[in-house]
C-alpha cells in the first residue's frame, strides 16, 4: 500500500453504536435473474443500510422456496429469456402476495426482465406471450431491435439517473404508472416515447443496469428511507460518503452512448 491510502469504508455509524433496527432486503430469483451485475443493487442496499446505522439482512427467494415474512425491501434483476421462462410459473404463484405488498407501499426495485414481468405481459418476438403479474400498468413487446448503450435521464424525484440499457423488449406505459424519468441520452422504455422506467407507489422499475444503485444513491436511499419509515415510523439517516459515486457519475456522463 502506498502512504496516501485512504480507508474506503465509511461505516462509523454502524460500529460502536447500537443499530437503529433491522431492515430485511429480499432478492427475487437471484439464481435466474441476476445477469448484468444486478447483485450490485443488493450489495449497495446492504452496505448503505449499514452506513445509515441500521442492520441489513439479505434474503433470497428462488423458485420453489418459502416466501419469507416481514420483508422490507424487494429487489429483482434482469435475466436471459430462458431465465424468464424458468421463473414465470413460480412468479404467477406469488403474484397476489407481491401485488399486496406493492399496493401497501412496500419499496421495490425491479430491473429489466423483472420490470417486464411486473407488467401485464411480455409478448416475445418469437411468438409466446409470457404473462406478467400486472403490478405495473405496462406492456412489453419483443422486437428484433436491441436498445443498447449508456443512458442518462432526468427525474424530478431523483435528479439525473444514469446507467446502461440492453434490451430488445419495448415497453409501453399505461395510465396507472408514471415514467421514472425523461431520457436525455439513450432510448429508454422504447424507441419512440423518450422516457425510461416506471413508478407505481414505492415501486421503482427500470431497464438500467450499471448496476443502477451504485451510481444513483438517491434511489437506494429512497428505498431505505421508505422501508425505515414503514417499519419504524421514522428514518434517521447516516452520512454515507458519496464522493466516489459523484466522481463516477461525472466521468460516466461524458462517455459515448
Amino acid at each position, binding site marked *: 500500500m502506498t502512504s496516501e491510502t485512504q480507508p474506503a469504508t465509511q461505516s462509523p455509524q454502524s460500529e460502536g453504536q447500537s443499530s437503529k433496527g433491522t431492515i430485511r432486503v429480499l432478492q427475487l430469483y437471484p439464481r435466474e435473474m441476476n445477469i448484468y451485475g444486478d447483485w*450490485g443493487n443488493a450489495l449497495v442496499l446492504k452496505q448503505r443500510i449499514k452506513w445509515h446505522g441500521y442492520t441489513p439482512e439479505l434474503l433470497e427467494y428462488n423458485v420453489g422456496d418459502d416466501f419469507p415474512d416481514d420483508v422490507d425491501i424487494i429487489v429483482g434483476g434482469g435475466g*436471459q429469456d430462458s431465465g424468464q421462462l*424458468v421463473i414465470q410459473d413460480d412468479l404467477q404463484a406469488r403474484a397476489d402476495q407481491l401485488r399486496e405488498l406493492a399496493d401497501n407501499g412496500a419499496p421495490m426495485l425491479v430491473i429489466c426482465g423483472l420490470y417486464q414481468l411486473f407488467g401485464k405481459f411480455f409478448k416475445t418476438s418469437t411468438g409466446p406471450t409470457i404473462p406478467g403479474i400486472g403490478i405495473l400498468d405496462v406492456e412489453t413487446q419483443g422486437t428484433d431491435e436491441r436498445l443498447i448503450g449508456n443512458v442518462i435521464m432526468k427525474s424530478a424525484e431523483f435528479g439525473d439517473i444514469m446507467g446502461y440499457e440492453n434490451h430488445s423488449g419495448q415497453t409501453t406505459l399505461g395510465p396507472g404508472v408514471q415514467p421514472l424519468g425523461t431520457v436525455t441520452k439513450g432510448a429508454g422504455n422504447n424507441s419512440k416515447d423518450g422516457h425510461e422506467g416506471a413508478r407505481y407507489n414505492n415501486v421503482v422499475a427500470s431497464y438500467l443496469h450499471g448496476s443502477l444503485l451504485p451510481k444513483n444513491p438517491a434511489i437506494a436511499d429512497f428505498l431505505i428511507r421508505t422501508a425505515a419509515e414503514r417499519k419504524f415510523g421514522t428514518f434517521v439517516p447516516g452520512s454515507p460518503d458519496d464522493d466516489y459515486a459523484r466522481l463516477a457519475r461525472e466521468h460516466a456522463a461524458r462517455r459515448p452512448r
Partner: protein
Amino acid sequence: MLSFSVPLGKLVRTLSRLRGGGSAFPGLVVEKIDPRFMQRTLASLPHGVAVVSGTNGKTTTTKMVVELLESQGLKVFTNRSGSNFTRGVAASLLGEVDWRGRLDADIAILELDEAHAVHFVNKVPPRYSLLLNVLRDQLDRFGEIDKTARLLEHIASKTTDTVVLNREDPRVARIAKTINTLDAVHHPEVRYFGLDESLRSTFPNDDEMRTGGGPSPSGTSVAAAPGEAVDLPDADVVLRRVGAQDADFEFDGKTVTTTMKLRGVYNIFNAAAALSLTRAVLGTGPIDTPKLVKALGDVAPAFGRGESLTVDGQPLELVLVKNPSGFRLGLKSFPAGGYATMIAINDNYADGRDMSWLWDVEFESLREGGVDVLTGVRAYDMALRLQYDDVPFGTVEPDITAALRTFIDGSRGKPKRIFCTYTSMLAIRRELAKITIVEVVS
C-alpha cells in the same frame, strides 16, 4: 482469375504494409475480385481446417494447438491475433500462399471471433472445431449469452469431423445435444475436455455467480442447467491438478505431469482443450507423446495474457480481465500477497461499454493488502466498486500514463501486478516501453 487475383492481393498487402496500414484491407481486395480464393486455398489442405472459438482464451489456446501440432511435425497455417474474422483470414492467407495461390501447410488452425465464425463456417465448413466457453463478455455486442451459445452451436453444426467441447461450461456442453439431432451425414464426433472435480469450484460459471460456484449440494454438476440433471460424459482430456509450476493431465487412461510456463488455472485448462483438439487432428496416427508433453510445457502465454515483464528488476505481471469470470479467476489464480496491485478499467468498444460486470466480481481477496492505484477511463467506477467491498485503495488517476508512474515509483523493490481490460493493457504496454526497458520473460 487465379493467376491474377493472388498476385494482386499480395501486392496490395505489401503496399498496405509499407504504409503501415490495416491487416484486412488486402483481404477485402481479394474477396472482391476472387470471392472463392479463401475456400479454394483452404480446401487444398490435407488435414483441413480447425476453428477455435468461444468468448475467452481463444488466442492462447490457438497458439497452443499450433505449437502442439508442430511438435508432431505438421506444418500449420494460423491467422495472426487481431485478424480473427473472415477477411482477416483471407489477408493472412495472402501472406502465406505462393504466387500461384498454393499454401504450403498441412492444416489451418483459425482463431475466430464467435460472431464472425458463423459467416466463416458458412463459407468454409471446418473439419474440426474447438468451442471453449460462453462467458458474459461484451454483451453489448451480441446481446445475450444464450445468443452467443447459439453462434457456437452453429459452428458445431457446420463441423464435418470432430467437435471438441468444454464439458464444464453448461452452455457449451449442451451443444452436444443439438449435434446429436443432426442427420447421420452431418454428424460430427463429439469429444470433451474436462476438469477434475477438485478444480471445479475454481471455475464458477456465470449461472452460479451468486451461489458460490462449484457443484451444488444436490449433486447436480456444473454442466447442469438450472433444474437439469446431468451425468457427466467422459472427457478425452481431463485437467487433474494444477501446481505452482506444473500440472497433471489425464488422457488415454494415464496421468501425465508436466512443468508449465503458462500461469493461471484458466490458461492451463485451455491447455487441456488444446491437447484434445490436437489428439482429434492426429486421429489414429502415431503420436509422439514425450514431444507433445514437452511442447505443452513450453507454451508461453499469448500477448498480454498472464504475461510477466521485468521492471526495475522486479516482475510486473499483466493480467487481462475482460469479464466477471475472467476477473474472478484472475484474482484466484494470482494471490495478492506480497504484490503491489493496480487495476486499469477502460470502457472502449473493445472492452465493452457496460460497467455492470465489475459488480459480479468479488474483491474481498484484495481487502487485506489493498489496491495501490486505480486507473483507466472508468477508474472512479472501480473506486466505487471497491468502496462497496470495503477494499482500501490509494491513488485514483484516470490517466494511465500518470497512474503507471505513480504505481512504479510507489512500489519500488516490490513485485507488481496489473489487472487490466484490453485497451488499457495496450496503453500500459506502450507506456512501459517508454519509461523503462521492457524485457519480456516467459
